[in-house]
């Protein structure tokens, strides 16, 4: 019986993890599709968003490495690079978009 319980515990762990994923995805405040629209690259950032991006850039991008010059990369490069940093830093999605807006306006 003890062995059976042990095996159940072992098989339960991945299920708990999968459940956590499902719950997290379900209770997310911004569904994926909606985020796609808000994160669209087609809309030009406002001056306020650029200013917020400058602040976010100064507060986040020097925590691990030196600040990189916005002119080092193109807009499209920054799109990919900042998404990389968004996942590994990690950064909230809104902050990442502000930083992108600043970098693209400054390169």
């Amino acid at each position: 019986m003890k062995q059976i319980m042990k095996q159940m515990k072992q098989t339960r762990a991945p299920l708990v993890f999968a459940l956590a994923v499902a719950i997290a995805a379900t209770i997310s405040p911004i569904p994926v599709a909606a985020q796609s629209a808000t994160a669209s690259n087609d809309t030009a950032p406002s001056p306020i968003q650029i200013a917020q991006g400058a602040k976010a850039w100064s507060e986040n991008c020097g925590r691990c490495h030196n600040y990189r010059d916005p002119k080092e990369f193109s807009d499209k490069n920054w799109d990919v690079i900042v998404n990389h940093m968004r996942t590994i830093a990690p950064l909230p999605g809104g902050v990442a978009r502000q930083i992108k807006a600043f970098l693209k306006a400054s390169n």
Partner: protein
Amino acid sequence: MTEKPARAAVALGIAALSMAVVAGLPARAAAQSDEALRHRIEAMEQRLDQMNDMAKQLETLKQELAKTRQQETAAARQASTDDSRSINWHLAGFGTADYTATNASGENDSFGAGGISPIFLVGYKDLVFWESELELSTLTDGSTKLELEFSNINLLATDWLTLTAGKFLSPIGDFQQHLHPTWINKLPDRPAGFVEDGGNEPLSEVGAMLRGAFPVGSTTFDYAVFAGNGPRLNDTADAGVKMEGFGGDDNNNKAFGGRIGWRPLPYLSVGVSGMRSKIKGNVGSGGTVGQSVYDVEDIDAAFTKGNWDIRGEYIRSHLDNLLTAIDLVSAPVQIPDSSWHSWYAQVAYRLAGITDNKVLGNFEPVVRYSQFDASGLADFTGNEEKRLSVGLDYWFAPSLVAKIAYENKDFANKANEDVLRVQMAFGF
């Protein structure tokens, strides 16, 4: 009376002359009119020729203009296509070249072959993101080593949730995840104990992970929760536990772990992280082996304000007593509970904070103390070390650095070493 005939003759002459003039006028006028007309016709012909030439030039210009407009339209269309492209990619990474001089017994001063770690970043809109890093280096025997450092797909589900699957850098601690690339690491070497073999820092994991960050008031929290195949015992006991993502699970016991980080201020961050797993004993020459719990706990902190960069991290790991072979040719034996402890503290200061001189301002002195201790099985304690590292960096650019550093390595079970390292690193 003689004046009359003379007057008459003069009058007659005048009359005759007048008649002659009057009679000749129409002919002269006609001749002059023909000449003028001819000139006008010639002039008009010249103007006509000029106009024909101009018309030809105009036609040529029109054709060139139309061609230019076509090219502009094509370029605009291409630019428009580029802007709206759904899939974008970027080749990032870093390269390293170094030289090491050491007084270690049996080791020679050597140039290190330029290693390179290309990172492929591919994104689909702001929804999906793939990242893969290769690590290429030349070994001392001349052969080339190729490793997959990480390779994972990320679904940017919400502003504060990313789902990651594949091989990813371990979220345990701060150094491996954020600081180990040579263009970021301020010293040429890793801290004692924060290494692949013989240390206790988790490097990578193969599995799935949830991670993200979210603001709380004026502060920011970040988190990561993962499940993976977990670590394994190294083939030889002195190398301890290997925590570099395995492509399969050898004991059907997944590792679970995560990290919670908090940034109360933009320049201050702290994090706690941990992992729990089970490790299967090595079979060695044959026989029954066991499985035991292996835990890792980690605390990290960083202060990065202005020109100061101060940070540290502590890792503790523990393996319950385990029935395992010590090496590949021995029979399994029961080894005792074993623990590993490693930590470092590092201070760096960019001289730009105290001088306006551009050259001097690019220098950055660095001091780091690190220590690695182990207890339990005697073989595990072979790498116990206290290390003092003193270095000086020169930053040619934000991601191009030359480093020189002296290390004093005080080993518990072998002769101490003094090492001088010179390194060039370039992040791109």
